[in-house]
Structure formats: C-alpha cells, structure tokens
C-alpha cells in the first residue's frame, strides 16, 4: 500500500504516545511533591521503585489488551464484565480522562499566568489552547502520534541542555546521605511518585491502534522507561542543584532551578525561556493525548462518531479546567486524580484480568 488508509500507529509511535501522555505537569512539580513526602534526599530511589511498579502495571494492561486485538478498553471491558458494569467503568475512565485533560490544561494555565502572562484572564489562555488541541485531535491518532514524534526529541534535547547547564549548581552533598533514615521515607515517597505516572491508562487503548500488537510490550515499556529516566534525572538535578530544603518550599522547583542561574554572555542568558517553551509543548501533547482518549471513550461507549464527540468534549474540558478556584485547589485536584487513577487501576485492569482469567479457566474446564 502506498497510501495508508488505516489509522494505525507504529511501535515507536506508540511508545512516544505513551511517553508524551505520562510526561506532563509532573516535570515541574515532582521534586517538591516527592521531597515533601520523603524529607530525605532519597527521593530518587522512590522514583526508581515506583517506576518499576508502574512498569508492572503497564505490563498487566498490555497483556490484558492483547487478548482483544484491535479493541480498546472501552470495547472489551463490556465483553469481560458485562455490558452494564463494563460500560459504567469505561464511563468512569472516560470521565477520568476529561478531568485529567482539564487538570493538565489548568496547571499549564497556572504556570503560564504566573511566569509569562500575568494579567491575562485565564480563559484567554485555556480556550485557544483547547482549540489548537481540537484541531490536532480531529486528525486522529496518527496525526497526534506524528506531532508527538516531532515534539519529543525537541523537548528532550532542550531539557537535557537545561539540566546540563544547571550542573554548575549541582552539589553531590545535597543528595547525601543515602538512606540515612532507612527505607521508610522511600516508601512514603512512593505514592506521590506513582501519581506522576497518571495517564499511563492510555496503554489500554493504544495497543488496539498498533500495527503490530505483538510488539506492544516492548513499545509500552520503552514508552514508560523514557519518562522514568527523565523524572529520575529531574529529581536528581533539582535536588542536587537546589538541595531538598529549597525544593520543598518552591511551588515549581524545576523552573526555580533553571531560574537560579544566569549564563551571562550567552544569547539566551535565561534558560527558563527554552524550558518554558518545551514544557508548554509537552503539555500540549499531554493534553491532546487525554483529549483524544476521552473523546474516543465517549464515542465508543455510546457508539457515536468521533468528530462530534470531540467538539462536545471542548466545553466539558474547559469546565473541568475551571473547577479549581485556586492553585491549592489545582494541586488538590491533582491528588484526587492520582487517587482516582489508582482506584481505576484496581477496577479496570486488575479486576478485569482477574475475571478474564477465571472465565478462561472456566471455559477450559467446561470444554
């Protein structure tokens, strides 16, 4: 086939898709969230541990999805646990994606208003962003994946350069001592670090869109491995550069790290500019991913055409993003989303794989 008519993505696109769904607001807030919980410089161990946990979760999701080739979770959940329960859970998942999209765009707006556009009304930031997302999402998963493919390398390069330059502040002593209080603080840090991986639920729909679902395990693990590395690097660099005490008190520690030095004599003396740029682009990816998933969910649950559903999602996401009244509310919403994510994980992949296994066994015994 010279022209591809099927809306499928390659393994590398799927990996990038998952990566961009996970890599979002967390990059700026993670060092604070994890330091608050851990209170020792061991937070990077928490990141590693939670990364392993999330990898296992994703493995489970992939394995479950591979049982239903070409079907997303919104389609196969009903087949496992019955139309009503499955439908209800899927509806929850779709709503979860809407709230997540709203949350991402709200935190984007908060950062933008704080650092870039003080005085602009918040809707003027959110609405054009949603519109741009709508334009992209209308193009289907292939266009989305392609945009991700363009943006991801730019983000990684700029991020690495920013971190590399910030190494001038890096002091290994800020990361020591290792495990001074034993393993307990590390375990306390697990929850906030697992939360930064919210969004990995997209795995359950991504597998259905892959050209070769057999490569899904590899692709998805690569897709989660990259954010794991970047988060680890972020925490190491921020805590090593600012020390844990400063990271706790700062609302956006990563930006503060980049803002706490100037490269005089260089054209971009202030590296928060490129950092903000790539972060905004990354948030766009993140947002579009959830936007798409939410639209996909609603359209598949109610068997509607995708395009009208996308348009209906626009005001819903806007309202979701406007629900928090303050920055505190936004962070509270973030925590709530994390809890919701954990609940959904237990309800959908875990429960459904259990039921699926039981049913399969039952079929075998009967047959």
């Amino acid at each position: 086939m010279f022209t591809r008519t099927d809306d499928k993505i390659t393994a590398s696109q799927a990996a990038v898709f998952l990566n961009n769904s996970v890599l979002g607001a967390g990059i700026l807030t993670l060092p604070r969230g994890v330091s608050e919980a851990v209170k020792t410089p061991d937070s990077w161990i928490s990141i590693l541990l939670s990364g392993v946990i999330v990898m296992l979760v994703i493995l489970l999701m992939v394995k479950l999805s591979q049982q239903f080739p070409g079907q997303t979770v919104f389609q196969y959940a009903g087949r496992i646990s019955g139309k009503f329960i499955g439908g209800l859970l899927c509806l929850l998942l779709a709503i979860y994606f809407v709230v997540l999209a709203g949350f991402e765009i709200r935190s984007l707006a908060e950062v933008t208003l704080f650092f870039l556009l003080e005085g602009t009304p918040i809707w003027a930031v959110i609405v054009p962003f949603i519109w741009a997302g709508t334009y992209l999402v209308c193009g289907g998963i292939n266009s989305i994946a392609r945009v991700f493919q363009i943006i991801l390398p730019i983000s990684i390069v700029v991020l690495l350069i920013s971190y590399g330059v910030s190494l001038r502040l890096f002091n290994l002593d800020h990361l020591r001592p290792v495990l001074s209080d034993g393993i307990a603080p590390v375990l306390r840090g697990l929850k906030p670090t697992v939360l930064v991986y919210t969004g990995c639920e997209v795995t359950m729909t991504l597998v259905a869109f892959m050209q070769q679902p057999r490569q899904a395990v590899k692709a998805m693990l690569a897709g989660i491995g990259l954010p794991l590395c970047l988060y680890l690097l972020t925490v190491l660099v921020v805590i090593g550069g600012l020390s844990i005490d400063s990271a706790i008190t700062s609302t956006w520690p990563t930006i503060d790290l980049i803002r706490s030095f100037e490269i005089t004599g260089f054209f971009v003396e202030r590296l928060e500019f490129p950092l903000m740029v790539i972060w905004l682009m990354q948030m766009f990816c993140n947002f579009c991913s959830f936007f798409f998933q939410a639209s996909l969910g609603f359209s598949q649950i109610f068997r509607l055409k995708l395009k009208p559903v996308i348009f209906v999602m626009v005001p819903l996401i806007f309202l979701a993003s406007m629900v928090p009244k303050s920055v505190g509310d936004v962070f509270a919403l973030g925590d709530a989303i994390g809890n919701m994510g954990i609940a959904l994980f237990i309800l959908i992949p875990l429960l459904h794989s259990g039921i699926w296994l039981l049913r399969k066994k039952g079929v075998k015994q009967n047959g």
Partner: protein
Amino acid sequence: MLSSIIAHIPDWLVFFQAAIAFLLPVGANYLYNILNAWGNTGRFTAAAAGRNAAHKDKTALSASQPSPSSASGTPFSGNYAADLQAIRSAIGSNSDLHFREFPLTKLHTKGTLIYVDGMQNDRLLNLRIMEYLMFEATADTLASPLNSVPAMPFSDLTAAADLTAFNRSVLFGHAGLLIDGMPHGLLIELPGGANRSVTEPVSEALLRGPRLGFSEVLSENTSMLRCQGFSDGLELKSYRIGNQMQKDLVIAYMKDIVNPELLQEVETRISTIDSDFLAESGYVEQLIEDNWLSPFQQVQNTERPDRVISALMEGRIAILLNGTPFALIVPVTFSMLLQSPEDYYERWLPGSLLRMLRFAAAFLALMAPALYISFISFHPGLIPTELAISIIEARQGVPFPSIIEVLILEVSIEILREAGIRLPKPVGPAMGIVGGLIIGDAAVNAGIVSPFLVIVVAVTAISSFSIPMYSAGITLRLLRFAGMLFAAFLGMFGTILFFLLLCSHLTKLKSFGVPYLTPVSPFRLRDWKDLFFRAPLSLMKRRPAMLKTQNDRRKSKV
C-alpha cells in the same frame, strides 16, 4: 460535601465561555466543510479519486484521446472542394491563415497547403515541401501516407481524424495539406512558434551545477530529460488537457523505480483535471494538490532538468506542461523545500552545513518577528539584562507598540521586495538594497521604529532569501504575519501555540499519499541521511523509504 461541590461549580460566565469555546470549533468545522465542498468543484477530490480508481482503464483511455469533443467533430467528406469550403468557412476568417493552392504535377490534381503565418519556422523546409508535393509526390505515396512515411521527406506526417481536429491543428501551427482525391487532410511538420533560447534558470541559480534550464517548448524539455543519460527506464506519458484550448502535458517517471500505485494516483488526478485552459504548470499544481486550503505547496516546481531527473531517480514523478519552463515534481515533502541541488554537488560537509543553515534561516524567517514582539511586549524578563537595557534605550520615543512597529517595517519590506521583482533587471536588486537601507535608516531617524527592530527585520528578510524555493519562501512570509498576530495576542504562549498549530497542520498534510513531514514524522531513520545532513554519496545506498520504490538500491552492490 454538597456545599463544597456547589462552591466549586463555576459561575455563569464560565459556562458562557464554555459555550463560546464549543461554538467556535464547530463553526470553524462547518465553515471548513462548506469551503471544501465549494472549492473542490472542478478539481481533483479524494472522493473523485476513489471513483476514478475504480474505472481506471476507462478514464486512462479517454484521457489519452485528444479530447472528448473530437468524437463529435465533423468527418471529412472526402470531396476536396467540399472539405476546402468547410475549412474556409470554419477558420477562413483568420487573417493570418494562408491557403496556398497548387497543382500536383505527377497526379494531375490540385492540393491546398494551409498554414498560419509565422509558425512554420523553416522557410527552406517549407519550400522543400512544396517542391516535393508539386513535382515528386505520387498517388501511392500519398494514398497511404502513414505506411510510407520513410519515403517522404517529412519527419512528422499524420492524417487528421476529422475536420475539427484538422482545423485546430492548423491553427496550432501545423501545416495542413488537403489533396484532391485523398480522404483525409494531412498534417505536416511540427509547429514552430516564437521561442527563446535555452538559458540558465533564473529562479534557481546555482554556483555549481548545470546551467541548463527548461524552456517553454515541451519537446525541448523532454529532450533535456532524455539527454541526462542513457537509460531505457525513463518513460514519458503524454496527455492533452484543457477543454477550450488544449495543451500537451507529459508525465515523466522511471518505470523500473516508481511505485505503480503512486503513478496510478498521479494519472488519475491528471485525468480528472477539468479546466478550459492551463496557462502554466501552476494551474496543474493547484488542480491536483491534496489540500487547497493549506498554505504549504504540495507540489514542487523547478526549472532545472537535473533536479527533475534526480527526483525521478528517487522514485518521484515529474509533470511537464507545454508552454512553461516550470516542471512539477510530486510527491514533495517539507524537507525538499529547503534543499538545493548544490547540496549534492558540493562535498558532503559543506553541503550539510549549508542545509542546516537553511533550516535555521527558515526558522528565523518564520519566527523572528513573532519572537521580537513577544519579548518586547510581553516578556521583558526573558531577555538578558544588558540587552533589555539597550533595547529600552533604543526604543525610547518609539510611539507604537511593537506589533504596529513590526508591521510597518515588515509590510514596507515586503512591498519593496515585490517592487524589486517588477523593476528592470539592472535596477531591481540595487533598489531593494538601497530602498531597504534608506527606509530602515529613515524610519529609525524619524523615531517610528527602533534600530533593534531594523536588525530583526533585516535578518528575517535575508533569511527568507536564503530559502532555495521561491514558492516556499512566499509561504513562510505569509505565515510570518500569522505568527506575529499570535505573538501580539498572547506573547510567547501565542507563539508556541502558533508553532503547535503549524506542526499539527503539517502532520495532517499529505502530498500524494506521502506525509508532508516524512522522514521526521512518521519517523524513517533511513531517510534521515538526506534531511538535516547530507550524508556522503557513498552512504546513499538506497532510495528514500517514504516513496516505497520498486527497486530501492542505488548501488549495484549494497
């Protein structure tokens, strides 16, 4: 619990905003659909292509016929006097048409040579024709002219199918021959109108590389392609397109390389062209491109035979139209717009350097004014302190906000550029430079713009000149203004939004089925050898993966 939920319900203003947020994309989508339906009348559409693919044989057949109107043309009656009278009544009122009646001595009949003034380029040949016809032609040579072509002194002799076609051809410049006793009119000799000599391509000048450019004559152009080397792979397929005035159009491709599906797609689109006249290959481009609402060109145009032939060797297809030196190449990707043949003619290191320079220049040409606006008007905190201070000092007394300031200078530079093209050759470039300098300097002195902006605008203008494709340069100029508006709206945030929209658009765009941003996305590592870098020729072992060619090896041994 309930009260906290109620407390979080946004007020009516937010709902109003949500309604607006909902209505605009819906409206835009509606508008887009209307526009699309409206603009797609009389041009290729995806739906039509699908339909045509189903009846491929039929359309291909009818396309290769001269025209649908030929079927309804009047046939020759076979009667010399009647036919001549018919011709006279049909086209005889043209003052430049000559009827030269003469006797054929050996046949003892009469014939008429009909021709248009000034289009038979060789007078000697003309005399020779007359001499032959009057004194040498015998009945049997003319009775079956097509069989005895070798015996005749004409390289090009055809029998016209009917009177209408005969008339048309005569007016197009063929010499028409009508002989008493012959059932058909004969057409001799190719038309030879006014023509210029082959010169160096103006729009794509190179320091190193062939100086040969296409001319307006299709046969010369195809011959230039043939001249590029010995091969039996180069295939040319001829079409005649146009309802009112027909023109020859040739599709060129390497038959053992090109992907047959791509070829079929191109043929289908060409055959669906419905237009009364194609003045230039730009008409063809606009009628066969995928998305007419996109600011980006989806067909590359070039004057250079070497460029065409190397595109063919990559598995692309060229479309040549009679009457224009611009050939079209399809499919095209974004990176091609920033490539110059010189990249390949120079050694790979300088070639790669120049290419990356061009990418940087394209970025500057697109974004520099937008960045200027967002820094000056929105984010004084993102520029280095010393720079900020000198900008403040430079901008003291500038009465306008930066967007107006930039618009003033950008628009005048664009006007200057446009004027420079129209001006006579020796004056043009000088005018551009002098005008730019004088306007910039005067504007600074008058306190309308800041000197810093003059630098920005100058860099932008120079950058956009460094883009090797003129039409790509226009696109970037157009988008630059869009970027400036975004920046004026939301500063850096708007600029990023603009970039993201551009990315979204480019990823959706396809040229003849090839995604526009290949090989960046979809990612094709194999094609990266010819993207930002130009890999050494010894490493260019395979043809681009994106074109899915039949034979993708460039070397005999891989």
